[in-house]
Structures are given as structure tokens and as C-alpha cells.
């Protein structure tokens, strides 16, 4: 059985340090297991979030050797254990304690996005008819587990702290899911441009790379949203041309 050293951020909102812990590593272990083992053996007050331990709830986001990852889905056999493994909280959000950050900003942002507004039901019994191919894309977006890893890597938030002006990739995906929902009748393009700072995104695709749900955030959500914003707000002639083309088939 191998032993490995984990260097974990310990501390509160203001001050913190990296503290080394050693623990045994057995086959198939993930980073979260190591953290739990350390909790049970030597640091019962070590704080971290987790729920499902299967990549489904998005609670256990952290930076492992500097890489934004879900701790429960990062196997130790994919990491070089001859070196110390650092585990730190996400940097784009204020630290609270140890591995826990204050992600409340995300909940505030979501409240500001206009809610789903369906068209009138298609059938007498109050239900709708939707084809599977018309929701494939929206379903891709709705796989999001709100781990906020994409928010964590986006330089607009991480390096430039534009939390007031920019809602971040997670909420662009969320907006895209609403905008492309075949039943939705609301228009969010104005807000995206004026309040939510979609223009800040310069398509670096870092968000797509870290998404544990493999959502193609940039290509499938952000770029089409940007196009919609342009169509609606900057290019009335282009919009007409497009409409015209569509009608001609």
C-alpha cells in the first residue's frame, strides 16, 4: 500500500496556509476519498463540500494541483503521487473555510435571469408536442450540475473579477437552455447584452475544457447566443435577410 502526501488549504476567509497530510492510497481511490480519510484520521474539522460522490451534484469542486476538477471524479491513479498533491478551493469565489468557497453570487445571478415562459399548450389536455431532435441541444445544456468549475476558470471572473458585469459561462449556458427551449416565448437577448455582459466572453474555450458534463459551452451555447444578440440588437438588416432566406427555405 502506498502513502501519499496531500497539501490542503486550511484556514478561513482571511488567512490560510497549505498543511500537509499523509494517508494510505488504495486501488481506485479518488481525491475526495483521500480528503475523507484525512478527515477521519487526522483532521476531523477539515471542511469540504460533497454529496453524491458520483459526479452528479456538483458540490465537490476544487483545484487539484491547480486544475479545476470534481474531487469525487478525480482518480488518484491519474495523478503523480510521488509529488505532493495540492488541494485548494476554487479561486474565483471568496474562500470561506478550508476547501469551501462562498458561491452565493451564482444563486443571485440566476435569480436575475428571466424565467421560463411557455407558449400555450398544443393539445386540449394542456400538454405540448415536442420532437426529440428539437430538445437534444437543450438537454445537453440541462445536464449542468452547477459545479461552477467553468466560472472558476473563466478569466473574466477569475482574473478580472467582473462579477458585477458578467454572469459567466454557467449562466450563459443556462440562458441558452431557456432561449433554445422550443416552448419558451421570452426574449433575454437584451439582458444578455446590457446586463449580463455576454460581450466580455472572448471565446477562449477554457470553460468547455473543464466542464465535467462535457457540455460544449462555447460552441453550442455562447456562440449561438452571441449571434442572436447581434441579430436582435446590432444588425436589423442582417436579421431581415436571414428571415427572408429562411422563408424561401
Amino acid at each position, binding site marked *: 500500500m502506498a502513502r501519499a502526501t496531500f497539501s490542503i488549504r486550511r484556514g478561513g476567509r482571511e488567512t490560510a496556509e497549505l498543511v500537509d497530510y499523509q494517508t494510505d492510497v488504495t486501488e481506485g481511490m479518488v481525491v475526495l476519498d483521500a480528503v475523507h480519510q484525512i*478527515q477521519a484520521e487526522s483532521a476531523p*474539522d477539515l*471542511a469540504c463540500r*460533497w*454529496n453524491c460522490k458520483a459526479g452528479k451534484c456538483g458540490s465537490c469542486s476544487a483545484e487539484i494541483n491547480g486544475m479545476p476538477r470534481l474531487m469525487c471524479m478525480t482518480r488518484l491513479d491519474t495523478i503523480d503521487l510521488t509529488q505532493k498533491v495540492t488541494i485548494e478551493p476554487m479561486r474565483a469565489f471568496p474562500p470561506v473555510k478550508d476547501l469551501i468557497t462562498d458561491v452565493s453570487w451564482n444563486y443571485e445571478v440566476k435569480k436575475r435571469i428571466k424565467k421560463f415562459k411557455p407558449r400555450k399548450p398544443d393539445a386540449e389536455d394542456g400538454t405540448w408536442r415536442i420532437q426529440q431532435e428539437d*430538445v437534444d441541444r437543450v438537454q445537453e445544456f440541462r*445536464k449542468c450540475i452547477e459545479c461552477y468549475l467553468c466560472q472558476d476558470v473563466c478569466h473574466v471572473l477569475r482574473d478580472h473579477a467582473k462579477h458585477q458585469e458578467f454572469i459567466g459561462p454557467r449562466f450563459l449556458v443556462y440562458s441558452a437552455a431557456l432561449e433554445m427551449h422550443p416552448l419558451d416565448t421570452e426574449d433575454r437577448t437584451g439582458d444578455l447584452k446590457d446586463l449580463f455582459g455576454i460581450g466580455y466572453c472572448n471565446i477562449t474555450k477554457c470553460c468547455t475544457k473543464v466542464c465535467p458534463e462535457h457540455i460544449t459551452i462555447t460552441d453550442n451555447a455562447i456562440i449561438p447566443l452571441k449571434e442572436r444578440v447581434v441579430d436582435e440588437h446590432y444588425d436589423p438588416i442582417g436579421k431581415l435577410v436571414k428571415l427572408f432566406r429562411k422563408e424561401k427555405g
Partner: protein
Amino acid sequence: MTDYPIFEHDVIVIGAGGAGLRAAIEASANGVSVGLICKSLLGKAHTVMAEGGMAAAMGNVDDRDNWKVHFSDTMRGGQYVNNWRMAELHAKEAPDRVRELEAWGAVFDRTKDGKILQRNFGGHRYPRLAHVGDRTGLELIRTLQDHGVHQGIEVYMEVTVVSLLKDGGRVIGCLAYEREHGRFRVFKCKALVLATGGIGRAYKITSNSWEGTGDGHALAYDAGAELIDMEFIQFHPTGMVWPPSVRGILVTEGVRGEGGILKNNEGRRFMFDDIPDNYKNQTASDPEEGWRYVQGDKNANRPPELLTRDHVARCINREVKAGRGSPHGGVYLDIAWIKEKLPNSVEHIKKKLPSMYHQFMQLANLDITTTPMEVGPTTHYVMGGVRVDADTQESSVPGLFAAGECAAGINGANRLGGNSLSDLIVFGKRAGEYAAKFAQENQAGTINKDEVAAKAKAALQPFEREGGENPYAIQHDLQELMQANVGIVRTQDEMVEALNGLDLLRNRSAKTFVPGNIDFNPGWHTALDLHNLLIVAEAITLSAIERQESRGGHFRDDFPEKDPAFAKFNFAVKKTEDGAMSVSRIPIPEMPDELKQVIEEMG
């Protein structure tokens, strides 16, 4: 004496899983102010993990389905000790509750004609589970969460309730602490809904998260409510068994619904060897018929892999015990074999079971499209819980309501897959509605400050017992004890041993010590959870000792047969005056003739 801040709402809901969110939405829609408290962040509750789907007899895939079939399937699955009124309401109302989710933005998988698609699941006669791939719980919780935030519900995240507060006989609030700083808060209300989910953490091998410590069960019990059916624990047949750190994590029944088969190490499809009599005429006679069933052939019967969970779990247990198991103590679950039937099987499996594909790829280095999985039983769901009125979800304590997994009745001795998510929305709604009504008809009570101070002081003791025991060690021992002695197969002697063991653990839990400061201290939280786990473990064991027969999720080696005498009542535990736990029998009321007739018609 410290004065703790008081937060006041007409209705307080504890728990933000499907049941709690649905209750909060309904109460708020009825015009009362609502506070919603949860231990984790919003959207992370256990419900998020549900995979397979929610059962509702919409008849979109097979128009022979209707509430009567669903009702009789639920009663059969529950071995007729269910609360029949709840089973009836559930079967009748689930379709509307599911459609309502669509109006709130949920995006279900579709049929060819554009309706909500429904899939097969164990114990359901027709394809009945509305689903989104294998992430239905995520869709449910996100839809409710996103709908709820626009309704003015006040959400208190990462706040843990430690005790309910009463005024006379009535529940009028609760005491909680916020996890970040460990500060106590008093919540005052006119009606309170418990929606705290399950108890899986009382066992070593479980599909449940850290939250499943039976808090609601214990809160209700301490407040004087009854818990019924606690002997009925669902061990899901297919949890992961390897590698060790993922042991217990769920492998959705959807794998079997899509054609997955169970095999032992001899390659034998052992589920064909043992088909219970009351399911004989609904089960496929050979593998070919089973395959036709999962492909949607309406004239075929389901394969034996889709028999009820209690039965499948015991069959797996038997294979393993007989030495016919897989290398790591499970059996094989094979979906890869469908390549013999479907040319595009790899794509098909990835499309239908995407999160299972990823789960095995990432956690076990195993490609389910080419290789069989190793699976074994895992503690999954508790049928038992707070005894409630079927229509209103009110407990025997005025002002206290319960819904979802922490409430009992609908499932009887065994829950059918998919019946939980639909239970959450049907009875979550009802609980919210009737709690709001209760709040409108009653005044706020008076908080007893001395009681609050005493409870807060007791909760802080683990910090003061320098040299005391590590709470994790006690939790670990409790899980081992329950796993070994009150698991899938039970005997009198082992359960008595469990009771003795629980006594010792109770003494130890009164002496825990946690180091560090109070801010977000998981050691402290674990110490406080022990109280709840101990109540739940004792309730399970005592009820299981009393039920001297085998039925559904409760199987006794010393009484392996079902005994009709035990079909006549449920067991209830309650806290007596002197603080001990008592068990009593509650007769099941006679089913009305219309419902009896439904069951007869449905065969």
C-alpha cells in the same frame, strides 16, 4: 442566556429535495410566507442523484396504462401493507404533477409523436417512467429550484435543524445552526413540513450521501410523532462493488430496463431460476421474450431482472453466498451483450445511459458498452418514516407535516423504482397545500427560550469533552453493526445483538469530542448526526424484531415465509414518557370495495 436570532415564516419546510421544494412552491402559491431550510447548497439534495425516472400512468407509450394499473402495481410491490389511500392518490395525481413540471420548463425525453417518453422499470406493468436519460432527478430538482426562486421563497442553505420546538402539543418552530459559523438560529412558524429524505447512512454500504442520516425521522420522533414501517429498508440490487471507495454507488435499474441482464460467474442468467408465484404470469418465459419486452413488444412479459428490488437483491445475495459471485463479491450486470441484437449498440447505450457510462469509465476504468459490470446490493431507500394522514400529510403532532422519503405509507413493504420521485411531487404538493391551510387557520405559538438555550447547550457539548471519542469512529461502528446484523437477511439473534450494540454506541456517543473551532466543522456535524442515526437504527431493529415473517424489504431467515396475519397491521415506534422507544401494532383499515375491485380486475 444568549438570545438567538429568530426568523419567522408562516410555513417552514425542512429539506430542499424534490419533496421539500414542491411543498415550498405550493405553500407559497397559497399565499403564505415560506422559509426553506437545507443542510447543503440548494440543488444538491439527494434527489439530484435519482436516475431512472418518475412513475406516472400517463399512457404515452402504452395506452393500456391508467391509474388503476399503477395503483395495483404499487400495492402488489408493497405486499399490501401500504396505506392504500396514499397509493390511490399517488396513482391518480402523478400524471398531472409530471405534466406540470413540463409547464415549468422540464425537458423530458420524447416519444415519436412528441409526448413525454416513458420507460420500463421493475414492478411496473407498462412503460411508465417519465425520464431524461439517466439523470431524471437532476431535471426534477433543477426545474423546481428554478421555478421556486421566482416565487419569493426564502432559502436558508447550509443550515442544519437540530430540534423541533413545541408550544403545548403543537410544533411551532425549530432550532438550527448555520454550518459556516456554527451559530444557532431559531425558526418560528405556524406549520412545519419535514422533507429530509432517507437514512442510508445508518449502513456501511449505501447509495445515499452524507445527508441521509434520518434527521427528519429523529426530529419527528423526538417531537412525539410515530414512525411506521421502519423494518422495511430497500436494498437496491445493483450498487457498484469495485473499486472499494465507490462501493454502494448506484447503478440505475434503467440498465436492466434497457435490456441489461444479470449473470453469475458460471455465465448463468440466474434470475430465471427463481420467479415468485405472484409474478409468474407477468414474467417472460425465456430470454427471447424478455428482450422483446424491453424492445417495447406489448405482448411480451418482462424479463426476471425487472422483478421487484427486494427479490432481485436476495437472488444476488444468494449467488454470492453460494460462491457463484464475481471476483469482488458481486454478480455481473451485462448491457454490452445487446450488441448481438442492435447494430449500433455502443451509441445506443451511451445515449440511453450516459451517466452510467461515465460513472464506470471514470471511477472503475470499465467500458460498459463492451464489458459487464460487477454489482451487488446497496442500502438505498427507507420505506418507513413519519406516519401521516394520506390526504393532508399531517403527522399525529398538530402543525407537523411530512412528505417524501421521510414520510411513510405509500410504499408498504417495498417501493417500486420510480415511485419515489412521483411521491415527492404528489405528496410534496399536498403537504405544502395543507401546511399553508393550517398556517392560515392558526396563530403563531410562543418560543420557550429556556428550552432553546438548553438544546443549544447540549449541542455544543462535543467541544467540551476533551479526551472524548472521535465521532467518525462511532459512526463507522454503527454502520458496521447495522450492515452485519440488520441487513438484507435478518435473524432474531443477530438483531438482539444489534440492540445491545446500539446501547453501547449510545453511551459512547454521549462522550464524543471534536477538536477545532465551530466554523464549518464536519466532525461536530457528525457528532450531532449520531443522535439521529441511533434513533433510526433502533427503530429499524425493534420493528424488524417484531415482524416475525418475511415481506418485501424485510427478510428473516428464521421466518422465511410471508404470514397473512402480519398483513393486517403496520408497526409503529414512538417515544414514551420516560424517553424509551415503544413499538405498537397499528391495524390497517379495511380497503374500500372500489379499490378491492380494482386490484381484482388488474389481476
